[in-house]
């Protein structure tokens, strides 16, 4: 697992000049290269538009001309490059639409700078993780033991179809586990993949999240725990997972 290396290049498309400047500066100060654009058209006209020299795109949704949703949809036709939305629209519907058309994350203004950097790193890391396994589309539905896990909409459904509520951190953890079934996943990796939200709480927080998840998942159809502890190593997701 590589940490964000120097030289990772981001494109920022945001129509508000001062905010664009401030965001670019914030991102740059955290060790990324940034190219800023004020509209989709300007981005399309640039040399970066073929995406080959880009690692991530940060998109505002409300843009003059063609909006962020259209831009994202168009990019997704040809590329899996990570996309993060930054939007003034905070409703759940907007968020779901954003994630369903293939964005990797959705942030609401005003964005906390630390949060933004953490999300950029998490998204880049996930993209890195999937880099070797191109056949698996990120965000595809996961099925196990009658359960359904929808990484795009961030929803979990029990066998009888009812939605089970889990926290963001629990969800990330479950996605990580379910993506690597029957393999031992270390606490460190789980912690890293749970979006850096609960930074500073250490290994214990992973244990707490696991115990909360177990309570919500209940036992599998064969009566055993779905998440098994491997003492000293980490956890194993027991059920068979299909996509």
């Amino acid at each position: 697992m590589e940490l964000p290396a120097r030289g990772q290049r981001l494109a920022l498309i945001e129509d508000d000049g001062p905010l664009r400047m401030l965001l670019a500066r914030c991102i740059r100060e955290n060790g990324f290269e940034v190219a800023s654009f004020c509209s989709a058209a300007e981005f399309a006209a640039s040399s970066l538009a073929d995406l080959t020299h880009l690692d991530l795109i940060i998109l505002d949704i409300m843009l003059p001309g063609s909006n962020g949703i259209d831009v994202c949809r168009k990019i997704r036709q040809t590329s899996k490059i990570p996309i993060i939305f930054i939007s003034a629209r905070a409703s759940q519907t907007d968020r779901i639409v954003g994630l369903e058309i293939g964005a990797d994350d959705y942030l609401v203004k005003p964005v906390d700078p630390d949060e933004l950097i953490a999300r950029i790193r998490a998204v880049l890391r996930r993209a890195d993780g999937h880099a070797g396994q191109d056949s698996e589309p990120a965000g595809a539905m996961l099925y196990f033991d009658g359960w359904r896990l929808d990484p795009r909409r961030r929803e979990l459904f029990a066998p009888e179809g009812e939605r089970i509520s889990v926290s963001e951190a629990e969800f990330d953890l479950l996605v990580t586990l379910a993506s690597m079934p029957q393999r031992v996943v270390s606490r460190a990796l789980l912690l890293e993949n749970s979006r850096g939200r609960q930074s500073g709480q250490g290994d214990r927080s992973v244990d707490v999240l696991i115990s909360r998840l177990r309570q919500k998942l209940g036992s599998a159809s064969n009566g055993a725990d779905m998440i098994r502890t491997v003492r000293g190593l980490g956890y194993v997701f027991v059920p068979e997972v299909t996509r």
Partner: protein
Amino acid sequence: MSLGWSVWPQGLTSRLVLVLVLVMTAQFLVAGLLISGDESKIQREDIGRRIAEQVTVAERLIESVPSGQRRELAQALSTQHLEFRLVDEPVSRAAGRQSEMLRYLEADIFAWEPSLQEAGLWIALEDRKELSLDSYLTGSVEIGDGSWLAFRTREPVTNWRWAAFTLLRVGLVAIVIFGTAAVLVRTLNRPLVRLAESASLIGTDARIHFDEKTGPRELRRVSEALNAMQDRVDDVLLQRTRALAAVGHDMRTPLARIRLRIARIEDRVEREAAEHDVEIMGHMLQELLEYFDTDDPAPRTRTDLASLCRTICDGFEDLGNPVGYSGPDRLIAQVHHVGLRRAIENLVDNAVDHGTSRGIVLRADDDMIRITVADNGPGIPEEEFQRLMRPFERMDKARGEANGGIGLGLAITARVAELHGGRLVLRNREPNGLAATIELPVCDEPSA
């Protein structure tokens, strides 16, 4: 208006019925008077003619026989209606009553047989029984030899029976007409009553569509006008809401700039204070926009409320505010997931602000699910309950608003409960604390 308030009924039906009663009474009186007037005239003329003819014939017959046979003849001439006697003196004028009717009758008789006037006909009314309204006619006419032919009717001639009968008939007609009209008024009024009932619902909940197809034209126009009015009100509200929401969205961008600029403040205390301020402003915007979103919920989905409550409790615990959960491990219901989550979170937010210990209790019986958030804070005076559930209403400053809300928290929760067909119930606990319960009727329909 205030004078006649007690007499003049409130309802339109009652008013119309009262008007009908008055009109029908007037009709009854006038018609009764006219008809009985006409009838008594016809009757009087009829009696007059009969008497005139019979008396004339009797007089002529009697005059044509010798005096000795006259008395017997007079008796023989008596009929079922009229009795004749031969007397030596004219019937005393004082023997009976005189009346206006009698004068007319006399005139009728003379008009029919003018010879009777020359023969000195005199008639009078005679009451044969005491305490009876029946009057009989008596009279006499002179016969040549100084004797008088007296006659009296065997039947009463006054027409009170006829008059009463006539009035009864007119009255019956009036009652039948009145009854029919009252039923029609009620029928006519029904669409209006229905319209009034629907109209009183305007503004309470969803759009009321007035579809008046059967009622009178005026009511159809009223219902069209009410529809148009609702359209305009909705339109104004929508524009206001949109304007406010647009401002809310637009403010996020400058707020985002401020948030990024703040990161460059060197002084740590100042920076953190400013970050906190921006956070509060963000919360306010969030609350405002969520309030607008509440009215446009996603469809209901089958949701496990137990995990929903647990996730909320865990979230607060992770921020250092433990919230207990008591309830089943699974409880499935059809709910607006996002809205309900926000509704419960708002209650827990309040509980965290006002109490040192708080918990969520989830209970369900056959037809009601109750989600109660209880704290051990100071509670709320009961008279404030309704006010605080309205948008933009807050507790007084003394109680403080630690999280800088704008008074939409309880309003959003109450609105979400209503969207589920339920309600938000506040209750003070003993010895202190508040219990806020979201009551949700059990609903199995997926998209209700």
